[in-house]
């Protein structure tokens, strides 16, 4: 009997990806988690176990900030789920309509903000919404709605929602593209068969297309979840590390940055920062697991 040959080519082909991924993703991830178990006391780094997490969740000074950031983060996510994804699906449905003219133009125009840097988007919107130089007050004035204008980014009650909507504006192209691609894969025959049974127009969308693109919507939801709970850039560029006004736009990313690197007179604390990063990792992991095992496995799939 011949001994089984080791199939070297598998190792060789996997090696580059495994090495790079380990070096830039897996190692830093576990090292961050390890860092969260230490603390620096009198210039000495010592092992403190779960002490940092205890401080984070039970010390009122820290936990208040943590729950505030987490709550804001959920609101940020909810706005995306309620606004970005339905609009994305609607745009995709409209774009896939065969008789729509200039579809390619709209598609590109809506997708372009996605490729812009956060800094540009944040700065541009800050200028647009500026009560002093912005065009938003003037445009509202033109239609006689000046009274509706408020310095949104500076008000505790509006700032976070405003920023979430700016982020929606930037990223609505992504669900649109993914759903658009999913819609294109639906075979004509199915729609025609439906038509023969009298299902056309809106009914065709709700009864035939939507069930077929549900898996894509699931993927988009989970991408939105991961993206939102890792968000940082937009808040940092528009509101700074203190996520003003009065921490009303503070999300986990800015809270982690401020703690890890320090801010103004506050010195950086890499160990507490890592603990927050660890908590973020756990939240995202739990969210993704709920989706993968709770929702995706139960989703009905259709053979097309």
């Amino acid at each position, binding site marked *: 009997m011949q001994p089984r040959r080791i199939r070297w080519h598998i190792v060789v082909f996997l090696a580059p990806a495994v090495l790079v991924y380990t070096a830039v993703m897996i190692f830093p991830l576990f090292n961050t988690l390890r860092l969260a178990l230490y603390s620096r006391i009198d*210039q000495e780094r010592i092992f403190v176990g779960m002490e940092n997490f205890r401080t984070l969740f039970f010390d009122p*000074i*820290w936990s208040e900030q943590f729950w505030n950031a987490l709550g804001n983060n959920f609101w940020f996510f909810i706005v995306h789920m309620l606004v970005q994804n339905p609009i994305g699906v609607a745009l995709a449905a409209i774009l896939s309509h065969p008789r729509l003219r200039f579809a390619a133009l709209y598609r590109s125009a809506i997708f372009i903000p996605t490729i812009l840097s956060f800094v540009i988007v944040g700065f541009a919107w*800050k200028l647009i*919404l*500026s*009560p*002093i*130089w912005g065009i938003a*007050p003037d445009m509202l004035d033109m239609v006689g709605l000046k009274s509706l204008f*408020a*310095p*949104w*980014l*500076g*008000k*505790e009650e509006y700032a976070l929602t405003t920023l979430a909507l700016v982020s929606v504006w930037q990223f609505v192209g992504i669900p649109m593209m993914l759903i658009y691609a999913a819609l294109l894969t639906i075979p004509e025959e199915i729609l025609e068969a439906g038509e023969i049974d009298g299902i056309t127009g809106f009914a065709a969308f709700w009864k035939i297309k939507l069930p077929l693109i549900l898996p894509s919507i699931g993927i988009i939801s989970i991408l939105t979840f991961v993206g939102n709970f890792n968000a940082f850039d937009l808040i940092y560029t528009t*509101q*700074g*590390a*203190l996520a*003003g*006004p*009065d*921490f009303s736009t503070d999300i986990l990313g800015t809270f982690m940055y401020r703690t890890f*690197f*320090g*801010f*103004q*007179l*506050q*010195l*950086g604390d890499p160990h507490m920062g890592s603990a927050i990063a660890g908590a973020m990792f756990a939240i995202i992991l739990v969210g993704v697991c709920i989706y993968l095992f709770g929702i995706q496995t139960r989703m009905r799939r259709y053979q097309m």
Partner: protein
Amino acid sequence: MTRNILKMALASTALVATTAYADDVTLTIESWRNDDLALWQEQIIPAFEAANPGIKVKFTPSAPAEYNAILNSKLEAGSAGDLITCRPFDASLALYDAGHLSDLSDMDAMGNFSDVAKSAWQTDDGSASFCVPMASVIHGFIYNKDAFAELGLEAPTTEAEFFAALEAFKADGNYIPMAMGTNDQWEAATMGYNNIGPNYWKGEEGRRALIAGEQKLTDEQWVAPYATLAKWADYLGDGYEAQTYPDSQNLFTLGRAAVYPAGSWEVSGFNNLADFEMGAFKPPVMNAGDTCYISDHTDIGIGMNAASPNAEAARTFLAWVGSTEFATIFANALPGFYPLSNAPVEIEDPLAKEFVSWRGECESTIRSTYQILSRGTPNLENDTWGASVAAIKGTETPEALGAKLQEGLASWYAPQQ
């Protein structure tokens, strides 16, 4: 271990690289003053290089808001420059305690500075000094002289006159009475609370009492400035809640606002932008004739990276920073930043001169939250930003703000417990 080997390898390549360039030593300066890049490159560095052949200097600033974070990471990684521009108090003290800054107490140049000037860069017991003091900034208000003349107003000296002037501009309607926003938060604390506050808590007397635990943030003199800030809201422009720091600067230099709560660091920038005549007045006192107190804040120092391979050259540079020659170049190239050395320096810029003239009339102090009190969590300085904004917006009463700050400070600072 592997890290050390890597460091040695890097260091040796760096040495090889520097020896390749004839015998010149290149010193790199870390700084947050990216606004001053041209000044360093065109005036300060050439003057030093001319006097010290063989030493080249490179000024590599980063953005002010990110400086502390960037510097800390660089020092940890061993890639920071030879000379470190020092933030006052704890940020630099922490660097010294961590062994990143060298002790400079033995330098002759240190004798050129007063104890107050050195206090911002010393250990708590004053036994070691680790940065050469470079400059301080003075707080006050800059005003549009043309606008004041138009309405026939004089620069106010008392609080009643101050609000009367603002009211006059509001009634007139051609100017925004005062240009300040709360979006970036720090202006409210730095140009608001710590600007007008020293008149209430009597400068150093109150500041030291707070550190000693003899006064509390709930005391009248620490709460009253918040009540005054609350009155500012009526005179700030429409939508001040979303107005940023650059917005305020632009509003004032475009001549659309009458008064600008300022730090003297604005002087050189404003001189280039404003085409009207500017004047400055000090924080108004309660009653005419009261002793005035100004915030004359030790703001910039410069120290040496303990890991620098060019220690000798770096010390030469620091000694030069302590000299009168440097003070003169610096003060006049950067009007609004006042050298801290004992040698008298003639300042030519009229606006900058107005600010510095208050040193003779008023008692000087520094910002109340900077020394020792912002060491713990929650951070008193950051909390003061939020509190000052809340006071202006009126979202909380001055008493509630004082109580909240006191509670935060008492949670970690023993003398206040």
